[in-house]
């Protein structure tokens, strides 16, 4: 039982790192980037290539995936995404789907359609006895890294000047501009960091998530659930939503395998109907 809970938490924290960039940029620019999962996939496949083809250490793959995806995100944001900000949500969704399709086909072309397996370093294999439960070392590693990332994010957002400028921009972009805050630049940086985190999540997830070309489509749905339950105005909302979703998904699959995704989709629709702004959003803000 405790093992399942532990696996669920690991999965949930991974989801959080994958999705958090999308939540923040959606709250900041009201831009729905359904293709966010493509960055995670890029991180995952980069790790596969570096690890399996070039024998780079798994521990080095993680920062490499972050940096690579952050640069990729920054370039795409400046060249393509920037043209979509003042268009309708429908256009943004179509654009995202186009990016998803292209990324799926590209990965399929270079890497093939089959699922990719990575050989984790021996130090991350095996299991530990922890509080009477058997715990995978790798999942523990995932929890530690994601936990550190979460703390770092929370610190950056709550304690740094960049964080307060970012929050100001989310609160009221128009006035923030009038107060000398370069919202466009803040958004570009946030987008890059968010993409980088997705890439890191994708790299970390190679051992947990199944990595094949339709990854962005599959996880798009999970990200949407995280957003609809967690809201976009804080990062604690998406954090708890991810943990909840991770635990619910893992326990659901364990105890009621026949229900599969049914359970979480129903939760998503129910939440959207009851609270169109997300479950964890602070009550009426004005």
């Amino acid at each position, binding site marked *: 039982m405790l093992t399942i809970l532990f696996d669920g938490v690991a999965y949930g924290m991974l989801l959080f790192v994958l999705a958090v960039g999308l939540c923040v940029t959606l709250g900041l620019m009201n831009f729905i980037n359904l293709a966010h999962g493509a960055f995670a996939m890029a991180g995952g496949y980069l790790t596969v290539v570096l690890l399996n083809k070039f024998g780079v250490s798994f521990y080095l793959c993680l920062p490499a995936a972050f940096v690579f995806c952050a640069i990729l995100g920054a370039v795409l944001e400046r060249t393509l995404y920037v043209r979509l900000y003042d268009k309708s949500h429908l256009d943004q969704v179509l654009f995202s789907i186009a990016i998803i399709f292209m990324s799926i086909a590209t990965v399929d072309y270079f890497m093939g359609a089959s699922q990719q397996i990575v050989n984790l370093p021996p130090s991350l294999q095996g299991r530990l006895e922890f509080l009477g439960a058997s715990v995978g070392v790798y999942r523990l590693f995932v929890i530690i890294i994601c936990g550190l990332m979460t703390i770092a994010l929370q610190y950056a957002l709550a304690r740094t000047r960049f964080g307060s400028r970012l929050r*100001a921009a989310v609160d*009221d972009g128009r006035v923030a501009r009038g*107060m000398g805050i370069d919202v466009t630049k803040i958004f570009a940086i946030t987008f890059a960091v968010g993409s980088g985190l997705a890439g890191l999540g994708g790299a970390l997830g190679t051992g947990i998530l199944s990595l094949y070309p339709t990854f962005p489509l599959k996880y798009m749905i999970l990200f949407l659930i995280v957003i609809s339950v967690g809201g976009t105005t804080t990062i604690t909302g998406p954090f708890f939503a991810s943990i909840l979703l991770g635990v619910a998904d893992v326990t659901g699959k364990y105890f009621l395998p026949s229900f599969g995704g049914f359970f979480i989709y129903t939760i998503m629709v129910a939440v959207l109907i009851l609270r169109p702004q997300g479950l964890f959003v602070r009550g009426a803000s004005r």
Partner: protein
Amino acid sequence: MSELLALDDVSAGYGEALVLNHVSLSLDEGKSLALLGRNGTGKTTLLNTIVGLTRRRGGTLRLLGRDITNLRPDQRAEAGVGWVPQERNIFKSLTVDENLTAVLRPGPWNVDRIYAMFPRLAERKKNMGNQLSGGEQQMLAIGRALALNPRLLLLDEPLEGLAPIIVDELLAALGKLIRDEGMSAILVEQSARKILPLTDRAIILERGAIAYAGDSSALAGDQTTLHNLLGVAERPGQKPARAH
């Protein structure tokens, strides 16, 4: 005196609507201007145009001799425009302290000096932006604009909706800022009597154009103009055209 701000034949509005019609004005450094007019005459639009938030349809703007017509709002803030928006628009998920530090630029105004000016804010440093009273929000909005260390302060109806005792407190602070510190400012206000004593010059807008420009002290004594342009009155010489 060197010129601080100059608007040359500026027309602006929102979307299709045109609100400002061919407005020209200039303000010297260290001087202050009262921007008066009934509501809907374009006062806020004029300030927002200086900040860079409206759709400009023509004309040019200069700040300290530099053409700022095509600068973005954040670049204008950097160039020296400090703005106190009409609705205050305090960043609600930032603390009082963060509201100041997030926008702070180097210069004579630092956070301590702002707190010294508004001691009430110092007591509420750790409060979130949405946990302040109206008067405190207004003080914070002014403090936030000062944190930019602006050359020109734009105040959009800073006294509106506040209790009389707070109005007096704010007027005293503004008086200190403008008269004693020599801060250049444009004050938008509906109640002419309150801000005319604070300012050097006054402009009255009507239908987006300048209907009166002159010295504040002269305007304060000019009952007829005040009544005709700001009060409830017909414009002299214009008869109701309902006859036909």
